[in-house]
């Protein structure tokens, strides 16, 4: 019987099976940010166990509220910073070098095919784009990960999602994942890995695959995952070249993680997306999804382009291409937050930042900020935001606010008109 990629990763990393069906895995990466890590640090100190299992496998960043906005967030940043220094973590990213964790860590080449990755952040599923098993966990799992380098999981049943056909012009990875979540429902993949494949995934960049895997959690999925291939190799090559004789050897090595042809899946879903339209959410759950055409004309107060879902350079290029030579509507305010310093810098040298500013956007530093209503664009009661982020929960971007999730193209078009707009109609 064949195995899925997730089963192969589990097999390779199994440390212990304390009870039937409970798999304790060795971890390759334990990722940390300043919101969920300080309580783990404090607990380890209180227990007299302020240690790390392997300082090279722990990476940390201040990203949710940065630069700190008040004394409380300054304390969180300080706790993470002091801890990183005291344990000599080489991969710690402070103000100025920091970016949104799920954009920054892949960009640094930390995530490799076949890796096991945890973080105290639900969107850790993003890293499955590299053929890794990457799962969001709570602070207690993170704490044990920091101390012991292990994490416990149940058996990873996998839902295979085949994305067939080819995407029409003006339709993006974000539209695909919103559509898939609409089909699966918000708990359609609970305790499951979502394995994405098919010609549409094959044709996607790593940035697009990260957008796809990023929202697996919105269907309840433990991890989104893509097979590592030549696209993955191109992205990672600067970081792994020394490990292989040549590219062909690396590519051959990647294939050992590929799901077998006779792997057993919990479900297999086939979607032909050749006629997919841009998608947008309504209501307060990410599976409330409709074609943009059905919500077109809905007025918004704020437009937000950024986050771990859609704050990467490709996303900024798509939005800027629509904004070039245009201005946002007087009735809206618009914010763009490049997800990392490198993305910001690239956007600057490509002239994208100037386009955003000329269009009337506020350009902010890399941060999670407004996505979860912590800083940099919180909504007032009754306000509506068109956002490239991943959650439209009640109160998510500010108490009493409403969020419509969409692609960067739809967000840019919406900024121009002040109402939800299909970018293809401009």
């Amino acid at each position: 019987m064949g195995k899925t990629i997730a089963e192969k990763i589990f097999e390779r990393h199994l440390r212990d099976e304390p009870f039937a069906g409970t798999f304790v895995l060795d971890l390759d990466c334990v990722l940390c940010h300043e919101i969920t890590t300080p309580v783990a640090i404090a607990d380890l100190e209180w227990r007299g166990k302020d240690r790390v299992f392997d300082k090279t496998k722990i990476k940390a960043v201040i990203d949710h509220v940065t630069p700190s906005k008040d004394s409380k967030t300054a304390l969180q940043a300080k706790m993470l910073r002091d801890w990183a220094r005291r344990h000599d973590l080489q991969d710690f990213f402070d103000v100025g070098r920091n970016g949104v964790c799920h954009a920054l860590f892949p960009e640094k080449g930390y995530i490799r095919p076949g890796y096991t990755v945890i973080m105290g952040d639900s969107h850790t599923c993003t890293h499955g784009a590299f053929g890794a098993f990457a799962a969001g966990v709570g602070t207690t799992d993170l704490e044990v990960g920091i101390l012991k380098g292990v994490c416990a999981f149940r058996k990873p049943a996998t839902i295979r999602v085949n994305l067939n056909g080819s995407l029409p012009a003006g339709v993006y990875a974000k539209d695909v994942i919103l559509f898939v979540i609409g089909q699966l429902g918000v708990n359609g993949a609970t305790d499951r890995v979502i394995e994405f494949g098919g010609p549409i995934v094959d044709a996607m960049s790593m940035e697009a695959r990260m957008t796809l895997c990023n929202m697996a959690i919105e269907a309840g999925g433990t991890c989104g995952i893509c097979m590592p291939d030549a696209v993955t190799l191109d992205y990672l090559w600067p970081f792994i070249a020394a490990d292989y004789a040549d590219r062909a050897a690396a590519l051959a090595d990647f294939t050992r993680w590929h799901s077998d042809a006779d792997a057993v899946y919990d479900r297999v879903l086939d979607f032909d997306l050749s006629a997919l339209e841009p998608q947008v959410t309504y209501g307060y759950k990410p599976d409330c999804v409709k074609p943009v055409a059905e919500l077109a004309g809905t007025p918004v107060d704020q437009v937000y382009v950024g986050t771990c879902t859609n704050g990467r350079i490709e996303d900024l290029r798509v939005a800027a291409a629509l904004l070039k030579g245009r201005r946002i509507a007087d009735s809206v305010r618009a914010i763009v937050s490049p997800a990392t310093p490198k993305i910001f810098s690239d956007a600057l040298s490509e002239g994208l930042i100037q386009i955003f500013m000329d269009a009337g956007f506020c350009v902010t530093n890399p941060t999670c900020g407004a996505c979860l209503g912590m800083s940099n664009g919180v909504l007032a009661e009754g306000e509506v935001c068109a956002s490239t982020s991943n959650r439209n929960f009640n109160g998510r971007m500010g108490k009493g606010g409403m969020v419509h999730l969409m692609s960067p193209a739809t967000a840019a078009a919406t900024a121009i008109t002040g109402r939800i707009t299909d970018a293809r109609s401009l």
Partner: protein
Amino acid sequence: MEKIFKGPALFLDRSDINTDEIIPAKYLTEVTKEALQPYMLEDLKLEGFDPKSPAVRHARVVVTRENFGCGSSREHAPWVFEVNGVHTIIAQSYARIFRQNMFNGGMLAIELPKDQIDRLFALALRTEVEIAVDVEAQCLTANGADGTSETFSFDLSAFDKALVQAGGWVEFADARY
């Protein structure tokens, strides 16, 4: 803190209650569990629900529907229940991370089939309800103030039970790895 698996039950008749509703992100700037105490369920979207009501303040058990605790991985959600004395959740199903966080903290996230959840909600329509859980026997009893009661058994994996008995995942892992 010793965990107590019994007491007055609070009934939340909705599915897909997410962790942003249980504890809004603006309170995630706290670095102690205790500081979260005043904010439990502050943004819950449920008609007639008042997070400051006596029923919420006195609750020791929460009964709810499907996919409870979806969304953010924040362990602040189990913590805000913990520091309010709610150490038992009973639901038809959970989001993975929330469920694991409950057991990792030595608390109970009990799953019951839909018809049994329906019967608990029906009981709550008639009368105030207190629920007592026997972890060892894997059963729970819901006692109505009107004298009626319902008893259900539930499944608990060997791992989940070991976590509750150990007092949480840190204790379990530290002893074993």
